[in-house]
């Protein structure tokens, strides 16, 4: 029972191409889902802080319902359970246009939207009340106050936890392999299947994820330095014991 390493499988044959396709698919899913999640997150996070109770309750329901169920279950749900409920013409269109990709994007976006919602909510709640009060006193309606003052400030405040959630989203995109989306982790399995070189394939996939996350983290920390509001973000403790 020997395991013979053979790193050339990564670039000979189709493996290199598969890895590249996987990476592209991972980025595609992540970006589209991210846009969806941010939109849902900002909307529901803001709604959770308004004074109109039904809106607050609705947004709260969305958040608590979706984030307390594992993403894998949502993937199965959106992919297997939802299409049969749709009208036939929609089903046909979906089946011709990559239903698994769409299901994965929706599952990922809605789930992370609920998580972004929490981040947004705590961001808004950490803004001193005086800001919204001042805004209203200058004649802005509450909706305008949110749109022009509160949300922009909150967005700048939440860059660190939002970065964390964004990285989570990219990593969670790997779960889409369970419904057949040919993203990066799926492709490492594909390479394993056809070359039986599990170690090499897994290493390649792991390195790519690490580099991807590193790139995002570095970009976001540059963004944070540029957009941070001095005096409003708590200084990070660096004291060593």
């Amino acid at each position, binding site marked *: 029972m020997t*395991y013979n390493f053979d790193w050339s499988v990564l670039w000979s044959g189709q493996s290199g191409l598969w890895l590249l396709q996987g990476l592209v698919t991972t980025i595609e899913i992540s970006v589209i889902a991210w846009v969806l999640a941010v939109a849902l997150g900002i909307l529901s996070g803001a709604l959770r802080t308004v004074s109109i109770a039904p809106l607050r309750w609705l947004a709260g329901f969305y958040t608590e319902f979706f984030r307390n169920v594992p993403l894998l279950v949502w993937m199965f749900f959106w992919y297997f359970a939802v299409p049969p409920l749709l009208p036939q013409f929609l*089903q046909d269109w979906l089946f011709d246009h990559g*239903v698994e990709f769409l299901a994965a994007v929706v599952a990922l976006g809605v789930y992370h939207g609920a998580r972004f919602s929490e981040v947004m909510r705590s961001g808004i709640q950490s803004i001193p009340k005086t800001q919204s009060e001042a805004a209203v006193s200058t004649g802005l309606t509450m909706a305008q106050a949110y749109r022009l003052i509160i949300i922009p400030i909150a967005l700048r405040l939440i860059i660190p936890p939002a970065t964390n959630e964004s990285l989570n989203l990219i990593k969670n995109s790997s779960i889409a392999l*369970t419904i057949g989306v040919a993203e990066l982790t799926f492709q490492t*399995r594909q390479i394993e*299947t056809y070359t039986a070189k599990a170690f090499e394939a897994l290493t390649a996939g792991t390195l790519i994820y*690490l580099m991807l996350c590193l790139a995002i983290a570095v970009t976001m920390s540059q963004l944070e330095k540029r957009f941070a509001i001095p005096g409003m973000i708590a200084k990070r403790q660096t004291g060593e014991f």
Partner: protein
Amino acid sequence: MKPMLLLLTTLIAIAGSITVSRGETTLEKISQTGIFTIGTRTGSPPFAYVNRNNEWVGFSIDLVETSILPLISKKLNKQIKLEKKESAPNTRIPLLTSNAVDLIAETMTDTQSRREQVDFSLTFFATGAQFLVKKGTPIKGIQTIAGKRVAAQQGSTNAKIIRERVPNAKLLEFPDQPAAFQALVQGQVQAYTNDGIQLAGLKAKAPKPDDWAVVGEFFSYEPYGMAMRKNDSDFRQVVNLALMEAIESGQYFRLYDKWFGPKGEVPYPLAPDTKRFLQLQVIPK
């Protein structure tokens, strides 16, 4: 960032220079641990599946339990326990080569290219590929499959053949049979290709068997073998002897009757040619 890159490159360099090697054979491993692990399916009735009582049963599993396991126990002079792990076309060879399982006992087709990675036992079943479709569709076989959406299991011989022979068919690969069947049920694909006997099993066990039809001539030859690690002749000898014994003593045909007989789970008469082929594999003592 730099220390991390350094650590990673060091790890990779180390990994690239070692060859993990164990001189141990499969029989030694089984003797040492007392456990014989097989990789088998959970959704391929009646070869290996989970039945209505949520028990893991099947023809392949029975073959192992009644023939191979007792012979291994006898050869090693100790009581060996059987453990089952789930395998699928895209995981079974890695499971074998990584020592997670000792034998793949499911519905794996013996092919020349697969023999480069694993060894096979003698053929314990023979069938061919067909299509499963909703009753009444115009698809009648491989000639009429062009341009249609077809499901196959990722890593199966059927997927490979469709890809090569009908490149303009829209092939969708799924991790295992249940996923592919669900795609067929939902209409995501118009046909599902797999070996005829498995399609018959799937149809028989489906919630509404009459909705489905197995169509087409066999468009490939699919001899089933049990796969094991390469260069392990002692173990292979035991497995083959067990299978030969089962065929010769009639145990194989009793099991066949249990699962595929007229009163079995999936009635599928054994062709006389196939029966003769099986019997001819039993070499003299």
